[in-house]
């Protein structure tokens, strides 16, 4: 415990002496010196708070815009990458077939090679198996078409106004389709808010087999001519149909189509 000092009969200070020590000026100066700093005053928090809120809102908005554009960009990249992979694999397949044609004795091993690449080539396993069997029976090389035409891409306008997400050609999603409509200028459409930007096409014209990623929404004229000339209409598989949302710019993958031209 702290010891308390005790003083008996200490000399009393006179009032005049005590009052002579008054110094209101220095007290005032000290008060002014110790005044609240600016950051503690409410006036500071108004503008700073508003600025903070504005900054926060801006950052949040920028983030959401960035996210949307990144998502869109990524989707386009994925679509492009898949197209490239398909194209490369088709080219690879073509090379293998060419080699096998020039060296008939090596046909069997080359077929094996094709089987190895199969998982990469095609997402639709069933259609791919069908392809392999055709390749083995027919030594004709597959023709690769990459109809990337910017003008065609730009000129695309969806015709169908319905809001469904089913792609179609002249209103046909799957099944029989008149040949004239298949190769019409309308191409693959979905609804008024979606514009088909690319798709993958697999078909056998009887003369050639096509496996191509096509930019745009129309079946290339070359294939149409082949189909018309051969008159051998087998099922056409249209897969990986990418459509761009006109309002948001988002890329959607639509359901695959299988059409039987007549």
């Amino acid at each position, binding site marked *: 415990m*702290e*010891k*308390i*000092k*005790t*003083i*008996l*009969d*200490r000399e009393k*200070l006179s*009032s005049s002496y*005590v*009052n002579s*020590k*008054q*110094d*209101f000026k*220095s*007290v*005032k100066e*000290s*008060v002014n010196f*110790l005044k609240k700093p600016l950051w503690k005053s409410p006036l500071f928090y108004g503008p700073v708070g508003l600025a903070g809120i504005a900054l926060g809102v801006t950052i949040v908005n920028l983030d959401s815009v960035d996210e949307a554009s990144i998502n869109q960009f990524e989707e386009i990249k994925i679509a492009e990458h898949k197209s490239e992979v398909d194209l490369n694999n088709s080219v690879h397949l073509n090379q293998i077939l060419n080699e096998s044609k020039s060296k008939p004795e090596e046909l069997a091993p080359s077929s094996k090679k094709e089987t190895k690449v199969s998982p990469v080539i095609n997402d639709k396993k069933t259609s791919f198996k069908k392809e392999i069997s055709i390749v083995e029976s027919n030594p004709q090389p597959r023709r690769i078409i990459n109809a990337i035409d910017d003008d065609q891409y730009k000129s695309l306008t969806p015709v169908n106004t319905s809001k469904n997400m089913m792609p179609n050609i002249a209103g046909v999603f799957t099944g029989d389709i008149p040949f004239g409509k298949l190769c019409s200028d309308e191409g693959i459409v979905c609804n008024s808010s979606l514009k088909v930007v690319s798709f993958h096409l697999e078909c056998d014209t009887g003369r050639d087999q096509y496996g191509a990623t096509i930019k745009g929404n129309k079946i290339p004229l070359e294939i149409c001519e082949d189909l018309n000339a051969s008159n051998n209409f087998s099922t056409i598989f249209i897969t990986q149909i990418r459509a761009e949302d006109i309002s948001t710019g988002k890329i959607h993958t639509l359901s695959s189509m299988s059409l039987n031209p007549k």
Partner: protein
Amino acid sequence: MTVNPMYHQTNTRLEEEQVLIREAKKDPERFGPLYSKYYEQIFRYIYQRMDDQELAFDITSQVFIKAMKNLHKYEYRGVPFSSWLYRIAKSELYQAYRDRKARKTINVESMHLFEMIEEFEENDNSLNKKKLFQCLSLLKDADLQMIEMRYFEKRSYKEIGEILEISENNAKVRSFRALERLKKLFMK
């Protein structure tokens, strides 16, 4: 027992004081009259409880600086402005004790000791004076505070109550109990 009449103010005086406070709130320059009025009282309150005169003056200045800074927080509750200043002074004083700047001190006048011994119904001799002197330093802070204010500074129960923010009756009871405890120590 006589009490110090300085603290007591009439309603008119209290109202006049409120006018000064309102003016000081608007303009700190107008705090001057309040400073002059209470400077001595506050200084004596502080100096009573320490032995360093210069430090007592410093602490007194600190009290007024704080009062001016926090004047906007002051609310009139029917008690003199000085009770608010005393509370600031008490807080500043205890801060000085904590910072080891000042040492707790009891300043007693022989006259006060005599009055207390008389209250204990004992003989006023040097031995008893010395004994009482020792007993005071053994008291708890709260009890010593009550004894100082009531018996050495001659404050009324009303004033003690206002300074300590307790009722007048409570101040009466506490000071009585403090005296009882001092008596017990003295009679041992």
